[in-house]
Every structure is written in C-alpha cells, then in structure tokens.
C-alpha cells in the first residue's frame, strides 16, 4: 500500500477540503487492484493514512459486493442472474459453467484459475446474457462463446 500513497495524495487533492473520508472507497479499490484483495495490513495502513475509524473501513469492506478480504482465482467469472439475463439464458450458462469448472458459485477451482459468482444486474440487459470477467464486461454470451472464453483464460 505504501507505493500507492502518492496516488492517494493526488486523489485527495481533487476533492474539496474536509472530504478525507471519501477516499475510503477509491483507495480500497486501488489496493484491491494491486493485491487482488484487501489485507488486514492494508486496513491498518489506510486508517493511518486517511484517519477514519477502523470500523468504517471494515464495514465498507463487508457491505459492498465488489470488495473482498481474501484472494480469489485469477479469473473472476461474474455471471448476471437477474431478470433479463435469465430470460435470455443466464441460468443455463451458469449451470454450464458449474459443470465445466466443477465448482459452485462463490467457489474457486482447485488450481486457482477461476472463481465463479452469480451476480445481480450489471446494466447490460440489452446484450444479455452478460457477465464480467475480472473488470471487463463480456456480453451476448452463448455456450459456445463461454467455452471459447474459457479456452483463452490461463
């Protein structure tokens, strides 16, 4: 986290004075981008740097879906299971992934390659079924497209 401090300071400068607390979400996101998750030492470091109570950061980490405190697989497959995607086949795709990877949602393959999640609406209903692979949207999914995608993921 120490390496990120210059970035955090540049970010702080973009906010009006008195907005230190607002740094929590963007800093956690950057930390997670670097490490893959947020470690306990990162929380300590952020408390020291921003000056918010530790409990605030702990709450934020557990409240928001995207933050995690444990590492996951290299590829996070987040399949939307909401209404429009389900109406265009998401449930079938999710089942396909579960069978192919032999894991259930929220599990990681033993080789640490893929973590599967069933997520809520991604705002991609027009190109349903949709999923996120790490940070990127992958849309208009079919079984074939999914299989092709899995081939490409190391």
């Amino acid at each position, binding site marked *: 986290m120490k390496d990120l401090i210059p970035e955090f300071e540049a970010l702080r400068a973009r906010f009006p004075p008195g907005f230190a607390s607002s740094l929590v979400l963007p800093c956690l996101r950057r930390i997670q981008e670097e490490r893959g998750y947020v470690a306990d030492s990162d929380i300590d470091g952020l408390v020291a740097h921003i000056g918010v109570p530790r409990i605030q950061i702990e709450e934020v980490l557990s409240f928001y879906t995207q933050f995690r405190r444990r590492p996951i697989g290299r590829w996070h497959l987040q399949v939307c299971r909401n209404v*429009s995607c389900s109406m265009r086949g998401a449930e079938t795709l999710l089942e396909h992934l579960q069978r192919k990877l032999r894991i259930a949602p929220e599990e990681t393959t033993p080789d640490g390659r893929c973590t599967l999640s069933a997520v809520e609406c991604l705002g991609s209903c027009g190109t349903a079924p949709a999923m996120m692979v790490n940070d990127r949207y992958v849309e208009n999914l079919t079984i074939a497209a999914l299989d092709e995608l899995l081939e490409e993921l190391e």
Partner: protein
Amino acid sequence: MAGRQLLMTFPVTANSHTLAEYRARGGYTVLENTLHHHTPRDVTQAVADAGLQGRGGAAFPTGRKWSVVVPGDGQPHYLIANADEGEPGTFKDRWILEQAPHLLLEGMLLSAYAIEARNCFIYIRGEFDLPYRRVAAAVEEAYAAGWLGDGIGGTGFGCDIVVYRGAGAYVAGEASGLISSLEGKKSYPRNRPPRLTVRGLYQRPTVVNNVESLSNVTGIVAHGAAAFRAVGTEKSPGTRLFSVSGHVNRPGVYEVELGFPWRKFIDEDCGGVLGGKPLKAVVPGGISSKVMTAAEVETLRLSHEDLWSAGSTLGSGGMIVVAEGTCMVRLLQIMLRFYHHESCGQCTPCRDGTGWMHRILDRIVAGEGRPEDIERLYYIAKYNDGTTICGLGDAAGYAASGMLDKFRDEFEFWIAHKHSRCQGRIECPIS
C-alpha cells in the same frame, strides 16, 4: 423512430463520444454562451419552465428540486450525477456515459452554474467498465480544453468534477444512500427531513440528478423551455431513453418521444416479441415498476401520466418484454431474490420483509407453497409501502403486488399443484 429525438441526434461512430466530435456538433457553445450572457437564475428558470421531470425513477420535477438550494447562502453546494444505474432492466444512462459523455458534462456544468456548485461528482456504479473509462476520459478532455477547472470560458465560473466509483450496491442508487457512499461509508440511506437539497453531502445543500436528466439541461437551455415542452405531452414534456430487453428482437436503448404508443414502439422500433410469440406482459420501468399485461400495453402511451393512471410508472426506463409462456412466478422469485440481496438492512420492514418475501417464493417454487402465501406477500408489501427509510422496501412490495394483481392464477396454480403451469420457463424458445 419513436417520435422526435432530443438526445440521440447524431450518428454513433467509433469517435462520436470524443470532445473533438462533440465540439464539431456544437458542443459547449451553449455553456459558453450561457456563462457570458445569462445568470444562474436564467438557467433555473428555463429548467423549471420546461417542466423537466427526473429521469432516474421518481420523475420529480427537476426545477422544483433545484429551487430548494438557496443562492448565495455562503456555504458550498454540490451537484451529483447519479450514474449508479442498478435498477434491473435499465441500461440507458450507460448509453449516455459511453456515447455522449460530454453531453452529460455540459449539462452538469450548466446545472452547477445554476445551483452555484463549485464541486460536482459523477457517482458511477463500480461494475461499469467501458462507461467509466469513457466518462473519465471525457472529464480529462474537458479539463485539458478548459471546460473544467477555474475560469471556464474566460469567466469567473469554475467547476470541478470528480468521477467516483461505487463498489457494488444497488441501494447506492438511492440519492441519500449514494451520498453516504460518497462520504466513504456503507451506503445507508437517510431519513428526510432534512431534504438533501438542505443537508446532503457532508451536510451541505446537494442536488442529486440522474444522468439523463442532466443531459437534457443543455438542450433546454439552448432552445428554451417552450421548445422542450413542444415535444412529448403536456404532463410529460420531452423524450425519455428506454432500455429495452427481455423477449424482444431488437433489444437496446431507444429514445422515445413521451406520449408515443407503447405497443407500436415495441413492435416497430424494437422488432416485436422474440420469435413472433404473443406478448404476455411488459415491465415498463425497471423491476420496481408494476408489471403491465399485454392488454394494458395495448391501450397505453409511454408517458408518465398514462402509466401513473394505470397504477404503474415509467420508473427508470428499464423496459422488459415478456413473451407468452413465461412463468411469472419464477420471474418474481428472481426479482425478490434481488431485493433481498440488496436491502441495506437498516429498517425493520425492508430488512425482514425482503428476506421473508424471497423465502416465500423459494418455498412456492420448491413445491411447498401454502394458500396463505399470497396474502402474506400482499401483507408484507402493504407494510413496506411508505413505511421505510427509502424506496427499496416499497419497490420490493410493488414487484410482488404487481405480479400478484395481474398473474395471481399462476401463483395459485403452483401452490395447489406444486409445480409451474408452464414448466417454470423464463427463456423464450425460438423454434
């Protein structure tokens, strides 16, 4: 085309979202002109006279929201563009963020000028990938070109925009939940009073507007309130973007002149129901709006007053088309699972009620439904209506009571027979 267009007025190309292309289309001239020749009051008046209604879900008159902020009260004001777009079925703000980010920025700058906000934020949902990159790039382009920062257009008006990314919470799309999140905390909505326009972000007067609402400001200021009112209906002036999805041949984002006939829009612009199947139902504006039957769709125009008088709402503009043969019980199960997952947990009726409703549906779908379950669902919906800190509880109730009002027989069937009347089908098989 579904009537006149106000926003989707340019061909979308690989570069049409850039500053250069936006300038070529006349972008930022309205801002420049306004800063030099008009007062903030002129802008607020135009927006109020135009009767612009919020495009996020509540259709609250934008001018009325702005009017609560007191000019020259000696404290900072904040403007926030709500780009959290999490209402299932909705992806129309995404279109603006990806294809017309400068339209949003110019609208924000005009609005910031109007309400005397030096600092603005775009709160964008954490999952959005390309929309985030596009809008962040647009902000950097605007800074580089002097449309953001100090002394914009050579005037004394300065404005800063920070793009703030969420981290995965539907409830952060609620204005006060958004503000809690922007303050670096969990996205807990707040009770009103005080209104956010009195005490919002860090207890300062704050206006939270939807992306599409702000994007309309430029045109209103450019062409005047009367020109805006000339489009749409008397009670629903202008146009709305609709994101269309579900069992439809041409899903996507469409701009519809308000008052346009609903069925015509689906059949002609959206290519009609997938596989030529008969239409069963349409969710008009995100799953928090009550579902309408095909028969109702037939009689209604897409306007706020039409939907309100029919007991529903245009909501977030997230239109989901449902073909005949779809199991509405399964659809409601998915909706309630969503609300249960997204409830922030603060207040009693929503926290306990959303979990309760979801589990009732799970039990019905598992073949263990009871005749009392339908009344239970209505009970839970009734006591989430108007009793909660924010609209999530009410919305979960509307989803349930809407489905039950229109498709009660499917629920009764499943409870009595322990299985769906249509194999629990939610996909639309195309033969």
